[in-house]
């Protein structure tokens, strides 16, 4: 499966295929329809999901791993991962897929790391869960992975607890933990939002390496359209649980949808000027239109 692959995304054979995905939550105030008919394919590429808070990005990502909260229900015409039907996979199959074939980096590293285990032990354990190797070998790999994610003193950091590391370091540790299992697909939910721009770029370059060198498929969730399009191959723009538009990242300036244009225009620019920023005018009609499905490969 991991034979030869091109540098160009393999459009003809998606690893992940999603059709008409819906996520609904029942709450005391009624039904929340968080994801409304999302369809896309993922190849060995960098796919961005962009939108403002509440647009359904995280819930789309979590549904792919069936990690939706207990009060939520997933429906989809199709949810396939390399020949497996994720909609009907049993709990054991899902457990095997999670964290070894599809990994997810959650928005907040502090909640995703176990507070009572050293970070090194967690990375090593993640490695051992995936592959049956001796402890010493797992430790060696964990240390080298810490080095890969640009942690300066891996030996020292290995024995620190999560509360002893900074947010930026915590996020890189999370990424190390996810990458050590060599997943086919990585879903990264705002992996760099808590980081400084320069560190943010370094983390993105690690994910970039995984896509280029190991043919991983990456779903990068973010609110930063500018950043995502400078990094990804394609971008899905979400609003109100729907895909408004699917963009070729290199052609951001050709974006058609007024929501996409609005998101771009309202960003401050480094042009030394201080004119008022255009504000985003929302049109209720956007919520009535069906999800854009141009992100699927076969058409």
């Amino acid at each position, binding site marked *: 499966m991991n034979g030869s692959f091109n540098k160009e995304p393999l459009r003809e054979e998606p690893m992940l295929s999603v059709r008409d995905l819906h996520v609904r939550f029942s709450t005391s105030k009624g039904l929340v329809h968080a994801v409304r008919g999302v369809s896309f394919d993922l190849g060995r590429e960098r796919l961005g999901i962009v939108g*403002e*808070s509440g647009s359904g990005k995280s819930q789309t990502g979590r549904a792919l791993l069936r990690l939706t909260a207990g009060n939520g229900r997933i429906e989809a015409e199709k949810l396939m991962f390399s020949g497996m039907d994720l909609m009907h996979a049993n709990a054991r199959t899902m457990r095997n897929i999670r964290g070894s074939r599809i990994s997810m980096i959650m928005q907040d590293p502090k909640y995703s790391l176990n507070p009572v285990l050293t970070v090194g032990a967690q990375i090593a354990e993640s490695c051992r869960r995936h592959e049956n190797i001796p402890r010493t070998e797992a430790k060696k790999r964990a240390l080298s992975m810490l080095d890969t994610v640009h942690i*300066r003193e891996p030996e020292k950091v290995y024995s620190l607890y999560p509360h002893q590391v*900074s*947010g*930026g370091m915590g996020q890189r540790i999370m990424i190390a933990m996810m990458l050590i299992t060599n997943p086919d697909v990585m879903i990264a939910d705002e992996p760099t939002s808590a980081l*400084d*721009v*320069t*560190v*943010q*770029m*370094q983390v*993105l*370059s690690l994910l*970039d390496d995984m896509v280029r060198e190991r043919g991983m498929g990456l779903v990068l969730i973010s*609110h*930063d*359209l*500018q*950043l995502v*399009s*400078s*990094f990804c191959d394609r971008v899905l723009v979400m609003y109100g649980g729907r895909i408004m538009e699917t963009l070729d990242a290199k052609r951001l300036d050709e974006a058609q949808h007024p929501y996409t244009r*609005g*998101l771009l225009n*309202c*960003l*401050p*620019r*480094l*042009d*030394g*000027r*201080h004119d*008022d*920023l*255009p*504000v*985003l005018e929302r049109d209720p009609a956007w919520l009535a239109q069906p999800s854009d499905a141009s992100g699927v490969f076969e058409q």
Partner: protein
Amino acid sequence: MIDINDFSITFGSGKNQIQAVKNFNLSVAEGESFGLVGESGSGKSTVLRAMVGIYSHWTGTIRIDGQPIAHKRTPASRKHMQMVFQDPYGSLHPRRTVDATLSEPLIIHGMDKREERVLKILGEVGLGPEYRFRYPHQLSGGQRQRVAIARALILEPRVILLDEPTSALDVSVQAEILNLLSALRKAHGLTYVMVSHDLAVVGHLCSRIAVMNRGVVVEEMSEDQMRTGDLKHEYTRQLWTASHGYDRKALAGFKEIA
């Protein structure tokens, strides 16, 4: 309006001691908007917090409008300089209505015509009178930040310190808040010092920017330099490049700045 000379501050002691800010100088004219940018932990918030008297164990001098400020601030001196924080959730009391939040500083400073002042300031930050008796949980993130700005403005200060005022907001809401801050500065002739890790945000509101790294200002940037990227210090150049998006080639040349 603001003059800071040789400001330094240290936290902790023994081997945990860290010098958060070293030999910091700053000079901001009345009505000017000055920016401080740098990675997290570089000492930006510490400077603002010392200015409003949250920290008192610093060395050096801080002058506001020619008057040196004491290490412990008096209510009178606080009135002229107010701060807006990043987190619009944490900075408002969850069980206080907008009215109570805005009236409190008026009561402390013994100011009259409270109802009139509250309604006027709400209007100025773009919230109608219908927001007056709402609680924070009944407001969106952007509306909460408007309330926080109203609270800072209600004492009619001359200087506003802004600590990452839009970092927790969506980009569309950020644009609205930046426009509001800009309009308020013009209308009241306010002097701003704004802190952010986002160079574009600071560059939008400010005409001069100091770049901090590990407690020291490494370079000051003009509007021209924001545009052209003609910068001297390695860290400033990296920050400028990274602020323009992902660039794999440029990244390969990045160095850890010690």
